[in-house]
């Protein structure tokens, strides 16, 4: 395998343009390796050559969505066999740029792309399932080992060699589940782990708890008396008899029902099919989970502008997170398209 062409992405600082005062630098390029790129070239050895360095200021890329297209166009000019971005260590904006460029470069060029960052970098959690991210230290003092790891991963991916487990290869877990048989039953492993922990000896969890993605709340509705509000629930409220077979748990769908002409949700016509709590009280009075009655009152009093004429509903019970995230995005798009400015979301 002779001389793979590598294009390296750096921010303005590592490209030698300047520090924070140069963070508005637009995308540009240099031929051959620059700064850390020289170390990258060393660790790549003879199998690959850093043919070009593409750079951009951290603020510029964060503030101009079009900058990403420009960066990828510059990368494309050099017909890369491999793209390397960063490493970004703990840097937030740089990490986001490396993640997004890696993701798009992989999709667009179909070649191996590797970036590097510290596991606590917010971009790591955002991109790790879709991008190969080498686990690095906190700061640039760890530059050489980070690049060594990235180069090894890139060359391995380029040669089609299957990668081993994350801990052995030094990349952040991509979230792929491998179903295996452990050497010993769970009971024996658990007692052994507990004994190590209580004795103060080193122990390793088989399953690290996640760092959750946080959703930034939208700004408050400016003037509710002029706003359109919608009712959305994960409480499993459906027309009695559940005509569309909404599941009691492990929901596979969300549903919408017209409430345009309705002032109330009488129990003869509505019920909850949620299978995660005692639904008796809701089935006596469905307003306990979808407060249509009081929202109508508010509408009449002028407290809110208008109620959106559809109720969106699903069952939030034992569902997996990607499914619920998809429901939220789909319902969100519908609401936005309908000009809804605020939502009363009732969960259970």
């Amino acid at each position: 395998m002779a001389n793979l062409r590598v294009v390296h992405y750096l921010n303005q600082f590592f490209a030698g343009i300047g520090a924070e005062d140069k963070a508005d630098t637009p995308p540009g390029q240099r031929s051959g390796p620059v700064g850390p790129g020289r170390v990258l070239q060393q660790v790549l050895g003879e199998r690959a050559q850093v043919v070009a360095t593409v750079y951009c200021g951290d603020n510029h890329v964060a503030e101009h969505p079009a900058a990403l297209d420009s960066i990828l166009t510059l990368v494309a000019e050099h017909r890369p066999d491999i793209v390397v971005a960063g490493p970004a260590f703990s840097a937030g904006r740089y990490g986001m740029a490396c993640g997004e460029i890696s993701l798009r470069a992989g999709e667009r060029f179909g070649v191996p792309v590797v970036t590097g960052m510290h596991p606590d970098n917010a971009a790591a959690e955002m991109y790790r399932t879709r991008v190969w991210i080498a686990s690095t230290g906190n700061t640039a003092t760890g530059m050489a080992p980070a690049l060594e790891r990235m180069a090894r991963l890139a060359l391995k991916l380029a040669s089609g060699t299957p990668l081993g487990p994350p801990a052995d290869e030094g990349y952040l877990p991509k979230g792929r589940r491998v179903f295996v048989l452990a050497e010993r039953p769970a009971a024996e492993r658990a007692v052994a782990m507990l004994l190590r922990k209580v004795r103060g000896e080193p122990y390793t969890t088989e399953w690290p708890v996640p760092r959750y993605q946080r959703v930034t709340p939208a700004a408050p509705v400016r003037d509710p008396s002029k706003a359109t509000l919608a009712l959305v629930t994960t409480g499993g409220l459906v027309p009695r008899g559940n005509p569309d077979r909404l599941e009691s748990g492990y929901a596979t769908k969300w549903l919408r029902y017209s409430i345009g002409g309705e002032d109330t949700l009488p129990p003869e016509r509505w019920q909850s099919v949620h299978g995660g709590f005692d639904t008796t009280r809701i089935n006596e009075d469905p307003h306990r989970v979808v407060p249509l009655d009081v929202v109508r009152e508010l509408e009449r009093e002028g407290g809110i502008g208008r109620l959106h004429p559809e109720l969106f509903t699903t069952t939030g019970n034992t569902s997996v997170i990607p499914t619920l995230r998809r429901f939220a995005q789909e319902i969100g798009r519908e609401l936005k398209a309908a000009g809804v400015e605020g939502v009363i979301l009732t969960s259970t």
Partner: protein
Amino acid sequence: MTDEEAPSMRLEIGSVNVRGLDFGHRTELADHTLVIDHDELRALVLDDPHFTDVRVRLARPGESVRLIHTLDVVEPRWKVAGPGGVFPGFVSPPVTVGEGRTHRLAGVAVVEVGAPVPGESTVFRDRLIDMSGPGAELSPFGRTLNVVLEFTPNLALFPPESEVMGDVLAGTAESNEYVRAVQTAGLKAAAYLGRTAAAVAPDELETFELGPCDSHLPRVVSLHQEVTLTPFLYGVRVSLPLGAMIHPNELFDGALVRWNRGYVGSTYWEQNHPIVRELCRHHGRDLNYLGGIVFGGVTASAADKEASSSSVSKMARLLRADAALAVGINGSNHAVDLMLTIQKCERAGIKTTVVYNDVGDGPDDPGFIFAVPEADAIVNAGCRDQKVVLPKMETIIGGELLAAPALDARGELTVPMRYLHGAIDPMGHSRLTVRFE
């Protein structure tokens, strides 16, 4: 009173290895084969107005048989010596058990089978057992000699309108009464069959006793989370958000009976609890096992969850535990109760380890409903959503369609791992685990 003065509960478990299962003229254990008088067992179960019929069928490892609508699974046992009997509160008086000697039919299981009755909740109800193929390798009950009780309900007990559920999760009062009857029948059958081992010399004898031990050993308590649909403790079905103490030997005598729904657990695993047995075997060697706290229940509000986790962690502190080993139920609101309990234990200086099922699907799903950073020692006991392809079986027992969704069980079937009875229960018997790459 100090540990040294306290009289300890001592229980011998005699295992009789059973290698064959057949019908015959008399129920007995003959040369490691369990012979069952079909009519006598049927009459025993039918002595209950809830059933108009019951079919007793045998399912052995290697047969092309699929059991669907399976409910609880119970191991036949009989109390040979000591106070009380097996399954207290159901087939013997509800007095404290766990002392003396109990014999078990190792390798045999009683499996209850029945489609849902009117008004019965079908949430989390579908579980099945294949006696051959990949399903049999994954589910421990594909490798036991199974005495299957297939019930026909007395529908006169379900008047019109009685199928209307106020609470989708719990089902109607009529259906709950019926399910209890099914559970009782399974336990009666298990005791009836267990009795055949009463006078047989066991192949193995193991003694369980939490006797006095070196005061320097770490003091360990086990925490047993139960699903929302509460279990029966000594026949009493009561929600246990605040926890209840249990001695391991009580489990071995069947004091804790699993409500037979919820994807997780069975009475069989309480009787043979792998984590409890492992802790008993380490007792006095490298740890001091203090006993278990059973907890869980409907904790609908944040206040209930605070109360539950506070109470359970307080009980561990009262026992002066250094460490707690939790059997956790992931998914839904149990996950919050468990994690808060772990957090409160850790903050009180009690080191925790949890055996837990992955409930995630897809790389973006970490598999936790809720987690606290203190949960840093987790044993992954397999993934509930791992897809399993089960080939067609020649014989289906229990019906043709699964309950919800109504998948056709007669052909090849692709189901999540949670459908395979006992395959990944967090009681710790399984080696199935998940590695994240």
